[in-house]
């Protein structure tokens, strides 16, 4: 009963591995998946929170979470390919929760194992007085919805300071992308049969 597939699946398993934040001591992360309208999560969690971890006392000064990510998406269209949005939070000198960085990255489109290093950034106050007041009150500038980080629109008015990096690894598996005609690796495109259709003439424009 296998008709022509109309959807393809993207299965991602990976982890939020570790981070480097030279100035801070305790950090935890929230993550969420941001995707377009044609995408749906068929299994796995939409968002989550990691544990609070302390920096290692050796020269590496590394924060390790080793936090598992497992999710499967279903879609009809690669547009809106899912992104992982990671927000890191910590405690300031007065014990209040403040944001330490945001970042977003697309899930890699080729099947296989991938590691990504995400540079983290925080929105910055405009003036020195605002910076002092926000340090004093513990109300740092933060995004109302971290999903903004996954969009391109509206960024031109924001000023940010980048600090720290988070390391994430992905294992990507896709199903039925080739059957729907999508090529995500060069060898797939080369292993074709004979040209069937007209319409593309390399000399025309």
């Amino acid at each position, binding site marked *: 009963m296998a008709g022509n597939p109309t959807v393809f699946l993207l299965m991602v398993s990976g982890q939020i591995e570790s981070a480097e934040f030279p100035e801070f001591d305790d950090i935890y992360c929230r993550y969420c998946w941001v995707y377009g309208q044609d995408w749906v999560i068929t299994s796995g969690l939409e968002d989550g929170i990691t544990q609070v971890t302390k920096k290692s006392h050796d020269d590496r000064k590394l924060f390790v979470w080793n936090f598992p990510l497992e999710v499967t998406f279903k879609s009809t269209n690669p547009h809106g*390919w899912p992104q992982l949005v990671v927000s890191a939070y910590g405690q300031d000198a007065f014990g209040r929760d403040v944001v330490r960085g945001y970042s977003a990255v*697309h899930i890699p489109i080729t099947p296989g194992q991938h590691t990504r290093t995400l540079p983290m950034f925080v929105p910055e106050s405009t003036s020195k007085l605002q910076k002092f007041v926000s340090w004093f009150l513990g109300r740092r500038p933060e995004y109302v919805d971290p999903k903004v980080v996954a969009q391109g629109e509206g960024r031109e008015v924001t000023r940010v*300071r980048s600090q720290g990096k988070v390391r994430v690894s992905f294992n990507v598996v896709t199903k039925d992308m080739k059957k729907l005609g999508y090529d995500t690796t*060069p060898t797939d495109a080369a292993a074709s049969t004979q040209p069937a259709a007209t319409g593309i003439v390399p000399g025309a424009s």
Partner: protein
Amino acid sequence: MAEVHVIGQIVGASGFPEHSLFCKWGVHAGGAWKILSGSREGQTQVDNPQDEQSANWSHPIDIHFSTKGLQGWPKLHFQVWHQDSYGRNELYGYGFCHVPTSPGMHSLECVTWRPAGSLREQISQYFIGGGPQLKNPDVVYTGADRYKLTTVTMGKVQLQLGIILRNFDKYGIEC
């Protein structure tokens, strides 16, 4: 109809003399190409890095093209600007690169250049900033009138792009 998906990020930039940079980007393609979804241009945030020399933008790009021909393969073009603490913007570089033609993940580095003015303009640029800008930004991605320009090398823009092609093998295209 063949389709191309460009899914990735403008990761950041390095090699520029100052921090506090932002990038205006756009995509240009020939007449046979049509954008089905995604924005054709945009502007990143202004990044002021804490401890490094490189700006980090992580600006997402997700564009879906359909095409009837290979001519005019899409090109991404960039303008890197510097914003100082007073809020003034100064041009730091122009650059372009072609969207990769083979499917898969690609890490690209796009080199940039800035127009150099006359000696007097260079001296005033050293002291008060500013500097010549192109009247017609099309020159960035065409070769037409380039011979009239003298330029200075600036830094590089890093991109991480994933390319998905659809139906190219049905038309006999090898890539």
